């Protein structure tokens, strides 16, 4: 394996690992805050238990997110020293603000996890919320840094002398892509986490359909994940329009759109052949790509034939990843629709085995879409690390033997992933013995609790 390929794979693997924990870190505090708030309002112990049980899982996720994030901040230099030397002073701004956000997050997390019964209840509740808010803030900031790599602004570049001048880090942070990317990412975090959590509780409900604890957990998670899943395709459409203007090569690769044309069709499925520029087995909906990219059915959409050969991104990977993301997104949106419909008009469906299986099967889809979406963004930018300015191969470290650090990262992270899953399993196993409300059953025909515990305990 070449060093460049190893470095790219190591970066991709590290980021792909971190993003899962980042998503949980952004969305989960809000799920806990909702449960916690309902407890403070209603005094219903099931919500308190839910909030506590979730926060135990979250602590494990946070620690893993924090170390994998720390690794990333070093890896930027370990793998891409040439890139960081030039880009650091330009796109470092969001990272420096992110430091503050992380700090507040870590502090608030300490207060939230260890504060039960130690600090006033509203301060305690707010500390949970602050964890979520600063998590989202750091997500927005780091994505702004990534957006700069897609649409570099805030400096002048002289290709002859390879110098970067007139640096304006604020302009770099508010680059043209930051808003659409950040919006889409934050929604993705809520979709992915909401469905992952709902799916796990739905799975447990299949075995114990009347369990109130899991019922309420699934509903809170589906509420949050469902709303986000509804907005996701809208935001995705905004992103696509943005990409069409800013990175036509990426859009062409996403759609395996080899030939520039008017009335360009939207490709669904299909296996692109990069050599011949043909696509097999796909369905094309005429004019739709032109419409989605530019809001006009007849407008020309730039194809790969207009991109110099050495500036074309890998088509197959980008296209498949895009199909996976959109497929998963469409599916989740339909599940969300079904949930809201049932919630309003057919409450009994929510306890039905088929519905529970549907939600359970959606568990990994949000995270899958997140991974696929990042593959689109990052692979679709190749061969550039800074779009149009610096090539990835110019940025890579001169140190040979990167494949060994790549293998190490793969082994260590795989081990961690297995351990985290195993720990989650143990959390679930012990729910019943830790929380009394776990045994409460709900009368399915009335959709209401028939045993409501009195809460005397102070928060």
């Amino acid at each position, binding site marked *: 394996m070449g060093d460049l390929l190893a470095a790219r794979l190591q970066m991709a693997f590290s980021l792909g690992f971190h993003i899962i924990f980042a998503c949980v870190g952004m969305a989960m505090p809000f799920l806990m805050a909702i449960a916690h708030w309902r407890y403070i309002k209603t005094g219903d112990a099931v919500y308190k238990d839910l909030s*506590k049980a979730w*926060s*135990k899982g979250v*602590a*494990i996720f*946070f*620690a*893993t997110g*924090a*170390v*994998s*994030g*720390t*690794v990333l901040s*070093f890896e*930027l*230099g*370990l793998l891409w*020293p*040439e890139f*960081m*030397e*030039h880009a*650091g*002073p*330009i796109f*470092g*701004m969001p*990272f*420096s*603000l992110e*430091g*503050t956000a992380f*700090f*507040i997050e*870590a*502090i*608030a*997390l*300490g*207060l939230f*996890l*260890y*504060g*039960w019964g*130690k600090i006033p209840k509203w301060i305690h509740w707010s500390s949970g919320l602050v964890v979520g808010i600063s998590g989202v803030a750091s997500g927005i900031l780091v994505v702004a840094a990534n957006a700069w790599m897609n649409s570099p602004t805030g400096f002048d570049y002289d290709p002859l002398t390879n110098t970067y001048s007139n*640096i*304006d*880090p604020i302009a770099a942070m508010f680059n043209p892509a930051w808003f659409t990317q950040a919006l889409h990412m934050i929604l993705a975090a809520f979709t992915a986490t909401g469905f992952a959590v709902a799916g796990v509780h739905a799975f447990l409900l299949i075995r114990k359909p009347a369990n109130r604890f899991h019922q309420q957990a699934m509903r809170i998670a589906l509420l949050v994940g469902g709303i986000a899943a509804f907005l996701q395709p809208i935001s995705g459409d905004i992103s696509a329009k943005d990409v069409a203007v800013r990175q036509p090569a990426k859009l062409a690769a996403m759609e395996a759109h080899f030939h520039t044309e008017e009335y360009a069709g939207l490709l669904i499925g299909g296996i692109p052949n990069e050599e011949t520029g043909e696509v097999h087995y796909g369905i094309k909906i005429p004019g739709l790509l032109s419409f989605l990219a530019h809001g006009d059915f007849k407008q020309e959409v730039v194809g790969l034939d207009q991109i110099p050969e050495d500036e074309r991104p890998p088509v197959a990977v980008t296209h498949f990843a895009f199909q996976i993301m959109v497929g998963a997104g469409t599916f989740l949106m339909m599940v969300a629709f079904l949930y809201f419909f049932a919630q309003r008009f057919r409450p009994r469906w929510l306890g039905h085995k088929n519905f529970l299986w549907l939600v359970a099967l959606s568990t990994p889809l949000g995270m899958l879409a997140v991974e696929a979406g990042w593959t689109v963004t990052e692979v679709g930018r190749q061969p550039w690390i800074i779009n149009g300015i610096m090539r990835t191969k110019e940025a890579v*470290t*001169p*140190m040979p033997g990167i494949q060994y*650090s790549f293998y*190490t990262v793969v082994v*260590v992270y795989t081990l961690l992933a297995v*351990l985290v899953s195993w*720990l989650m399993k*143990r959390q679930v*196993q*012990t729910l019943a013995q830790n929380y009394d409300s776990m045994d409460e059953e709900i009368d399915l025909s009335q959709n209401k609790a028939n045993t409501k515990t009195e809460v005397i305990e102070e928060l």
Partner: protein
Amino acid sequence: MFMYIVVLSFLLLSLLLYALLGGADFGAGVIQLLSTTPKAEKVIGRAIGPIWEANHMWLVIAVVISFMGFPAIFKVVSTALHIPVFILLLGIIFRGTAYAFKHYDAIKDEKSQLMYHRVFVWGSLVSTLFIGITFGAMSLGKIDPNAADFYTGYIAPWFNFFSISVGFLTTALFAFLAAVYLIGENEDPEVKDFFIAKAWKWLLASVAIGIVVFVAAYVDGLPLFNELISSPLSMLAIGFAAGSLPLMFSTIRKGKVVLARLMAGAQTVLILGAWLLLHYPHAIMLSNGGSLDLYDSRAPDATLAVLGWALLLGSLFILPALGYLYVVFKGHGPEESI
């Protein structure tokens, strides 16, 4: 120039706080390397539980300041010292996750607890060792950005007597810091004695390894001793650090918690300060006798200006919140986690 000073001060401050706070977290793992007791383990768990994530953020801040504010230095460190930094990261991964897993595992059976404990302790050792090795290598002067072969380029800069002995010095100092902090974390005399004994041993170890560092510098051709003599301020700092040792010994023996903590902190500050004064304005010594200097490696003014403001504004948020965290969990940690 003003913003350069602000940014540099924050870089030094975050490194210092990382040493004082994060270092003690690492040290808490290291002191359990040779022996530990279940009670002591519990005290350690409670003391670092609520604050370790926050302590560890100083490292991330230092990294961000260096790549945004001093990009050339960041580049050279991450290239020439790629290997020790990578091993440091492995240490951080294992230590951080093992600690969290140990405390949040829903089933606390002996077998898995022991496994987490071992990984935590060894991860702490690896991390402190390689923090020290990295910093030692920066000042030794074997870094050659134009090296022709793998050994001179990526191994020789850090795999040497001096850097490795600085690694052990860092380990011993962090362990000492941790032991002193922990004396006051619990009223149980048995636990107190345990930490007092640890503090003693690691203080002795620090002094001994400190002497080895001077020998190693001599062996590896770094005129550390001469440099020290020619820098009166550094001399003064080291003099204070050494001169306060007898007082240190007696406060630890008497178990004077606050004074001992302050003095241990001051010792660390003095040693780091002496090292900085010796080197300023050089950040990295190169094998051709030259150096990478902080001022010359700074980012453009526009970058330093916004970075300086971001740090100043950030600390308005961070410091009060951090203060509240320490006040809430001061002295006695929470009885049960969650």
